[in-house]
């Protein structure tokens, strides 16, 4: 139901993303999706990649402030309205999103997000039989 995401704390300055990308490149790690959220002073660079545990290690060794997080990865049909249906389940039960991003993979829409109540979200998504992207599947597709 959840997959591993790598979160890197980066400074709001030229070149800080390249530092992260170079470390992953040298380790031969493939990025599947990534997004940056920023404040005035710093940003968090969130990455879905192949071999997340190894990615965590190499980034740590490079001296970066990094963490591996569990994020939900819902798989949707690639048609209008699917994301709204899936998220309505959470909203109706009062679960809110901390962040969300999405991408297309193998003809399917993938919705990555974290909520303010992981356990409740997990329960709701089981009850509503949403389909999830597993890490194995992610690696196969890759």
């Amino acid at each position, binding site marked *: 139901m959840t997959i591993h995401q790598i979160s*890197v*704390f980066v*400074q709001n300055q030229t070149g800080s993303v390249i530092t992260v990308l170079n470390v992953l490149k040298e380790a031969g790690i493939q990025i599947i999706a990534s997004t940056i959220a920023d404040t005035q002073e710093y940003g968090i660079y969130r990455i879905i990649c192949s071999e997340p545990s190894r990615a965590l290690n190499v980034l740590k060794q490079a001296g970066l402030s*990094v*963490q591996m997080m569990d994020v939900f990865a819902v798989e949707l049909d690639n048609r209008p309205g699917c994301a709204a249906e899936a998220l309505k389940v959470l909203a109706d039960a009062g679960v809110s999103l901390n962040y969300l991003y999405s991408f297309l993979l193998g003809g399917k829409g993938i919705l990555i997000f*974290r909520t303010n109540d992981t356990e409740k979200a997990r329960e709701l998504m089981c009850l509503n039989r949403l389909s999830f992207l597993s890490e194995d599947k992610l690696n196969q597709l890759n």
Partner: protein
Amino acid sequence: MDNSSKYLHPEFETLSREGIEKLQLERLQATVRHCMNSPFYKKRFEEIGLKPEDIKTLDDVRKIPFTTKQDLRDTYPFGIASVPLRDCVRLHSSSGTTGNPTVILHTQKDLDAWADAVARCLWMVGLRPEDVFQNSSGYGMFTGGLGFQYGAERLGMLTVPAAAGNTLRQIKFIKDFGTTAVHAIPSYVTHMHDVMVEQGVEPRRDTKLRTLIIGAEPHSEEQRRRIEEMMGVKAYNSFGMSEMCGPGVGFECQEQNGLHFWEDYYIVEIVDPQTLEPVPDGEVGELVLTTLNREAMPLLRYRTRDLTRILGRTCPCGRNHVRIDRMRGRSDDMIVLRGVNIFPIQIEKILMQFPELSSNYLITLSTDRDNDNMTVEVEIADLFTDDFARLQELNVKVTAALKAEILLKPRVKLVPKGSLPVSEGKAVRVVDNRKVYQ
């Protein structure tokens, strides 16, 4: 008191250099004899076999070992005193956030001498009993409060203990009471002016202000001129330190060309902070002061850690008391910001309490629209969350903890691991970009 007299204490203020030095030697000898009542000084003199009789000339002051802030801490609270506690009537103390606080004791005679010194300074810049003096400085343990209060009263002025803060009320007092003179730290004067502008108060038109006393915070000549221009006043620089009573140690005369240090109260030395040898007049070194008329707690060759230089020993104002340049920095790592003394170790101590943070930090001091500010950048350790709200929460907590410690609110910036400069050996912890030191 004769209002038209230029001097409040002409018998001391107009002494010739010879007269000053003769008086200093008498007072130094008396002080050293008196110090033998202090357990601390008695022991120290015995250790090096120095006797009060050995002080025969003014230069013999150099035979006396230096006294440091650490000595004050080690003898906390009353170990340096030269009189029994029952003879003391007042105590001032530092906050003691970096170890034992430093305590200074005063007898009634000390308080009288202190008030006289402050009154002499205020008279020197032209204040007279007709003036209304508003003291917008912190009271309590901060000596700028009571020090100016007693000095201004001694001079005979109507004295308003407005204390720091509540700017709207300060402005109302200035208008309603016809305040002619204010004592405040320079950045507060700038703030007060901002509020006046907001309130539509034009100092030249709506107030009787003509004199400002500014001090307790480093400021440049340029800042002083700007303050004079915006408020339509003359602004005079004041130097004091709690170890030397407080305000009244050094003060500018109307020439505004250096601070006269009262040599009937203090022996002034400027030494090389490394070799501790005297430096020639005009060269920057550390200011060392010996008290000459203190009863409860004389201090001999006290290392102030302030860096400055001697500008001259004569002055067109007729006072031959040594003129000292504005302070140019510190020989230790103490930061003076908006009148508050801060050691980087205090900041480090707080940052270390947060496991989310690494031990690498950088303090930057900057001047922003005449206000001095502190930014504390600190590296976060491994990212403990990827939630902005929780990072922001951490930022707020760190800011609050720092404010509780240093009494000022710094701007806290979380930065990634490895992004702060680490210099060879000793890390650079403080970058001072304030205008005053440029």
